[in-house]
């Protein structure tokens, strides 16, 4: 009996009671749904969608929802209802630019976009971390009524960013508000 109980426990652990779960199919988040790529891992612990294939320092995709008017960590600016995508992009980018851990922050691209018919912005930026490693990020932002949705892909510039940028675009393209 003890042997079976132990086997059951081992099975449960292997089956995914740990902090990461294999990605599969669509993910229903906090007011949104996105299609996830196969072969990646999804964090069970984050209260937003966080997925990676090789580890979050090598690539990560984050999808989250926040209420318009919520506070940001690094800027006192806030999103407001009815903001134009360009204005929303300015707030998001200033939040990143004011992050003391993002050194040499530079905006490469900032333009309007559409995510499943919703007006959005798309921005691409780079920064260095404290160890001098250069990162690149692609970020879609959508204001929809009282909610703001962020869809972000981050990876080291060298080798990793270009590897999965197309996968990210597919994820972003599948995004729907629920």
């Amino acid at each position: 009996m003890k042997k079976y109980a132990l086997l059951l426990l081992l099975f449960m652990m292997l089956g995914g009671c740990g902090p990461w779960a294999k990605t599969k199919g669509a993910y229903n988040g906090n007011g949104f749904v996105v299609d996830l790529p196969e072969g990646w891992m999804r964090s069970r612990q984050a209260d937003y969608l966080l997925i990676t294939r090789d580890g979050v320092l090598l690539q990560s995709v984050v999808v989250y929802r926040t209420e318009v008017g919520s506070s940001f960590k690094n800027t006192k600016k806030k999103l407001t209802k009815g903001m134009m995508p360009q204005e929303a992009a300015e707030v998001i980018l200033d939040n990143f630019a004011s992050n003391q851990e993002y050194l040499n922050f530079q905006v490469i691209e900032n333009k309007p976009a559409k995510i499943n018919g919703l007006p959005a912005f798309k921005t691409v930026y780079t920064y260095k971390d404290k160890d001098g490693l250069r990162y690149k990020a692609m970020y879609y932002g959508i204001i929809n009524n009282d909610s703001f949705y962020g869809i972000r892909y981050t990876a080291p510039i060298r080798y990793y960013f270009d590897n999965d940028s197309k996968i990210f675009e597919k994820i972003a393209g599948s995004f729907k508000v629920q």
Partner: protein
Amino acid sequence: MTRLCYAFFLICILAGCAGTNLPPVSTAGFTLEEDEKRLWARSKEEATAIDQSDMIYDDRELEAYLNEVARKLQPPQVMKAVPFKVEVIRNPLLNAFAYPHGAVYVHSGILAQMENEAQLATLLAHEMTHATHRHAIKEFRHVKSKSAYLATLSTTLGGAPLIGEVFNILGAVGTMASVSGYSSDLETQADMEGLQLVVKAGYDPREAIKIFAELKKELEEEEVTEPFFFGTHPRINERIRNYQKLLRTEYAGRNNGVKNESTFRGKIAKVILDNAGLNLKAGRYSKAFHGAEKYLTIRPNDHRGHFLLAEAHRQRGENDDMEKAMAAYRKAVAIDVRHSESYRGMGLLQLKKGDAAAAKKNLRQYLNLMPQATDREYIEEYLKQM
């Protein structure tokens, strides 16, 4: 037996005192102690990391000026023992710190806040005294378990917003110097000895207290209940009282010291403008306005100051901000008719107001002047929709 007890007691006292009873570097025959050499080596590593981190404000002329002021404060034999070098860190928060081996870092935020060279001298003298009086090694020796202390710094400060980010970049020695500060006694010593250097160099000691008044004002505006920066010990009101006492007693009647306001403002004008820009990004509108207005008192005909003021009004978007933004953009283009971003600003305001004709004119002018604008696609979309 009693004699043994007394001897034991004396040894304990001496051992305790020896740990922190270090003469300043100006003492004849000064040499570093062994653990101090290791602390200096660690400090140099951290300072090198800062210097290579893109945090340093790139302005050689400004750096030369700051180091010139530092050299006025210390005699050559002290500079030889601790080769001070002052650099500016691009950071809008009010802070400055010194490593024990002489690297001194001043945030652009606190530099932009000052009014004259006497205030700068007070700040530098305070920080340099931490190094000349060997406060870092005294503090480290005072702590029984250094690894536990450093770990505690990491966990208690590392998780706090802003402070945590600073810790990740600075390292343990830098964080102790810049964030947690030294003990109350050592901070008081830095205040007193520092003020002595300031007076000796011919500066007006009455300016010393004004830095704290500005710091206190910032803390009230930001609703910070207790400052981490610029030393937590003693607390800011206590430090203001310390300086007030010194000005009433030891330095009473010292009215004719040097301030060098004009030279100082000329040297730091660009820092004021850039720092106002950092504050605008951080959403600290009142500081952004203050910085832009202060810059315009030094450089009234610089379109960049008017533009920054306009942007601050536009981005805050309260009450009569839109009218004030428009007025400031107009001043910017009156000075520099080719300043493209001012046309964009005016166009965006007019777009929001529903004045399509005026918005089109200004947004088209923006794209004409800046064909490679990174936000070109937004503007083209607005023009299509109008």
